């Protein structure tokens, strides 16, 4: 049998390289009206009155009064209005759409809309907790009571903006009462379900199609449902095709970002070992809860990172502030937590005067250990080999000592991490319950019918490979079009590193079924539905049990040089080793690895976004700095096989794993270079200067 990992050319290369791929803004030819969003000018205010200019014929407003259903975007926690009604809760919150043919006219009309507000006192601090989760493992009370010493450190992390290069956008039209939406989306069925609810209609009256997606990274997980609802309401009212495409600044000011966080970790120490840990996590949810609770739970579950700690007290809150709502971003709460825990274990070791590497190796999770939620690491963990490999490639042991003692301002940092694959807890079975279909037509072409979106991560290629491999047919005999909810079943959203492991796993099983039922020249359709492995038990209330069916693992080593004159950080090298079970396509996984790594590194040292008086200060690509080619270090990545029995060909999740270790690795490298404790990211030159002037060694 062929090795599935052997790379093939990606199936969408040609259309993308030649510029023929159709992203939503590229779709022309309908007689589109355009929509312009009228937004709040204050972070918190009561809308007293709205004065509209006289609208010429063919120009419309669309607001909450036009909504047939309940004015809320159906996400996970339904608290975000589609259009603000009486009150606005963040700067630029949408209030209404202006719709019409000529953008110049719309722009002019928009400038004449006058809204009278009664300004309310906004809240930007971590004071209004709307979600609190708390769980324990072992006996943390006794562990802390009996501790020889308790060591505590605080950590904080900033915003991160997805900065997909294609801004958000959606278009739609109606045929009779049926509404079709085409967009840059990760989750066709999230959009469909949100639109069904907002129009208070039936499933067959809503169709959602994915256009080519120019990057997403979580940013197109829940946010597109908001635009889709607005657009659907507008189409329902006006009955004309409408296009709603964001400019970059609008996108950056109003779309969801990675949650800023404040994390306090406390360790109970006995005999130079961490026998217990208390973690307290605060996430800034922004003005609406949305996915924040789910993000928080992933963060909390990742409290112990790649380590096993027997006694835990884990506590976290989502705080509501009058700022842009935060949401999904590759890693989903784990990047904040993994930064904190990786720094913490180093800081604890330093406090104790012992070698961090020794302490880490001692605490490293092993097969059959209990997870932070008293689940079990059932599958083999090959972190020891991975760490050895990473240290050998990077010459870590020598460099870390050398850089600590010299004044070269060079540094090396190594992060260890894991990522739970798929939805947290029982989400896969209770919320998603994925269904996949394969159809073989009379010409013997096999059609993959799933709702998974190729947003660059290559699932069009990898899914086809799985099917072709199982059926032993050429790749060209397999078709996988962009999902269209009129044709594909709900195989779930394209999120949470679930697509290959869960959906791909189902597809592999479906392909096997098809192989058995194959009748040449006749149509054959097979289906597979997700079934939770019987051993996976999860209690959503108490956070006890197996939070994930499987874990992917990784090691990142990063070497930096800090300028002694300007404190700017130059990334020299990055080495990574990953266990993603089995790569379905090695080149695609390396692509995920490089790209995820760059985003993770950017999060750690470069990408600054703040709000000031509720307004995003870094609202364009000039001010929000992401890495360019010149900033990228040379990268070396090794993939180690460790097949997961339930994944297709042994594959586990990969998409998020490659991001989550970047920030701690670069932060540790900077710490090693400047010999001051790093407790905050992004670690900018301004902060490095502060540390050098006033920081703790």
């Amino acid at each position: 049998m062929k090795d599935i990992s052997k790379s093939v050319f990606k199936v969408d290369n040609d259309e993308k390289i030649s510029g023929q791929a159709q992203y939503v803004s590229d779709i022309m030819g309908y007689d589109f009206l355009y929509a312009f969003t009228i937004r709040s000018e204050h972070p918190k205010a009561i809308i007293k009155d709205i004065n509209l200019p006289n609208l010429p014929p063919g120009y419309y407003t669309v607001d909450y009064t036009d909504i047939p259903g309940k004015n809320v975007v159906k996400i996970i926690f339904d608290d975000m209005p589609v259009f603000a009604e009486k009150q606005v809760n963040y700067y630029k919150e949408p209030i209404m759409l202006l719709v019409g043919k000529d953008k110049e006219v719309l722009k002019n009309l928009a400038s004449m809309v006058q809204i009278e507000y009664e300004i309310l006192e906004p809240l930007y601090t971590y004071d209004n907790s709307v979600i609190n989760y708390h769980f324990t493992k072992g006996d943390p009370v006794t562990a802390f009571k009996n501790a020889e010493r308790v060591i505590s450190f605080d950590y904080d992390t900033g915003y991160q903006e997805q900065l997909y290069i294609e801004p958000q956008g959606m278009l739609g039209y109606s045929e009779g009462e049926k509404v079709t939406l085409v967009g840059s989306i990760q989750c066709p069925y999230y959009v469909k379900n949100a639109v069904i609810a907002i129009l208070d209609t039936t499933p067959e009256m809503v169709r959602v199609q994915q256009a080519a997606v120019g990057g997403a990274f979580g940013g197109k997980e829940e946010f597109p449902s908001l635009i889709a609802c607005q657009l659907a309401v507008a189409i329902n009212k006006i009955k004309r095709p409408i296009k709603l495409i964001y400019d970059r600044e609008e996108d950056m000011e109003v779309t969801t970002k990675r949650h800023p966080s404040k994390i306090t970790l406390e360790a109970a120490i006995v005999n130079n070992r961490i026998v217990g840990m208390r973690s307290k996590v605060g996430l800034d949810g922004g003005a609406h809860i949305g996915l924040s609770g789910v993000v928080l739970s992933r963060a909390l579950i990742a409290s112990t990172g790649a380590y096993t700690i027997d006694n835990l007290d884990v506590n976290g809150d989502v705080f509501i502030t009058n700022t842009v709502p935060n949401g999904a971003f590759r890693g989903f709460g784990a990047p904040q937590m993994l930064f904190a825990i990786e720094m913490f274990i180093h800081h604890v070791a330093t406090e104790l005067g012992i070698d961090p590497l020794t302490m880490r190796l001692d605490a490293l999770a092993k097969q059959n250990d209990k997870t932070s939620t008293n689940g079990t690491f059932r599958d083999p963990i090959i972190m020891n080999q991975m760490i050895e490999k990473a240290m050998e490639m990077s010459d870590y042991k020598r460099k870390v000592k050398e850089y600590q003692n010299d004044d070269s301002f060079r540094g090396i940092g190594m992060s260890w991490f894991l990522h739970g694959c798929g939805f947290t807890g029982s989400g896969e079975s209770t919320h998603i319950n994925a269904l996949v279909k394969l159809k073989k037509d009379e010409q013997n072409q096999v059609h993959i019918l799933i709702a998974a979106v190729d947003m660059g991560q290559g699932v069009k290629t990898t899914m086809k490979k799985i099917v072709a491999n199982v059926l032993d047919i050429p790749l060209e005999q397999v078709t996988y079009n962009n999902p269209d909810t009129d044709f594909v079943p709900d195989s779930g959203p394209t999120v949470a590193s679930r697509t290959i492991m869960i959906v791909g796993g189902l597809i592999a099983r479906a392909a096997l079924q098809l192989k058995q039922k194959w009748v040449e020249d006749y149509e054959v359709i097979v289906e597979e539905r997700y079934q939770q492995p019987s051993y996976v038990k999860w209690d959503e209330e108490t956070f006890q049990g197996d939070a994930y069916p499987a874990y992917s693992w990784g090691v990142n080593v990063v070497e930096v040089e800090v300028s002694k004159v300007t404190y700017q950080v130059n990334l020299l090298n990055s080495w990574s080793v990953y266990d993603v079970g089995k790569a379905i396509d090695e080149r695609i996984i390396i692509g995920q690895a490089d790209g995820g790594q760059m985003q993770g590194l950017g999060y750690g040292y470069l990408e600054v976004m703040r709000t000031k008086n509720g307004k995003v200060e870094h609202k364009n690509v000039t001010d929000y700095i992401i890495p360019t080619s010149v900033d990228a270090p040379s990268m070396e990545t090794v993939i180690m096989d460790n097949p997961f029995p339930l994944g297709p060909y042994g594959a586990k999740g990969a998409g998020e794993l490659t991001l989550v270790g970047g920030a701690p690795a670069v932060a540790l490298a900077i710490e090693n270079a400047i010999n001051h404790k790093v407790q905050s990211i992004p670690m900018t030159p301004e902060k490095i200067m502060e540390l050098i002037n006033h920081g703790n060694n």
Partner: protein
Amino acid sequence: METIKFTLNHKVVEVEINETKRLLDVLREHFLLTGVKEGCGEGECGACAVLLDGDIVNSCMVPIANVKDHDVVTIEGYSKTKNFEVLKEAYAEEGAVQCGFCTPGMMIASEALLRKNPHPTEEDIKNGISGNLCRCTGYNMIIKAVQRASKSGEGLW
């Protein structure tokens, strides 16, 4: 409004349009050349890159007046060349394409670089494509693709 005449993908074209309009908008909306992408509208991301008299420019910063009597090539025109085929192959071999939104601009930047410097060093490539943001790949695979094209397309540039 003045009629602006220029060469677009090797054909002479004319538009009568507000002279301050962005070349980007004219290409996309008037000529339906949607391979030219708008990523940021402020010259930072390079997704809208085209060749103007053979040199890369960001079409979101170019008023249409400035291309009067000049030569513009977009990805649509470029994709009909031998150079394109070589670069395309190299991009595919190295896995340089993920979401694809930056890719047409990146191809234009690669071509512009190789035209000036057929045997670029890694540093040269990094500098040559530094005006084109990619959020998916971490750039390494793109850099390798340009290196590969420089070898496999020996003599073309």
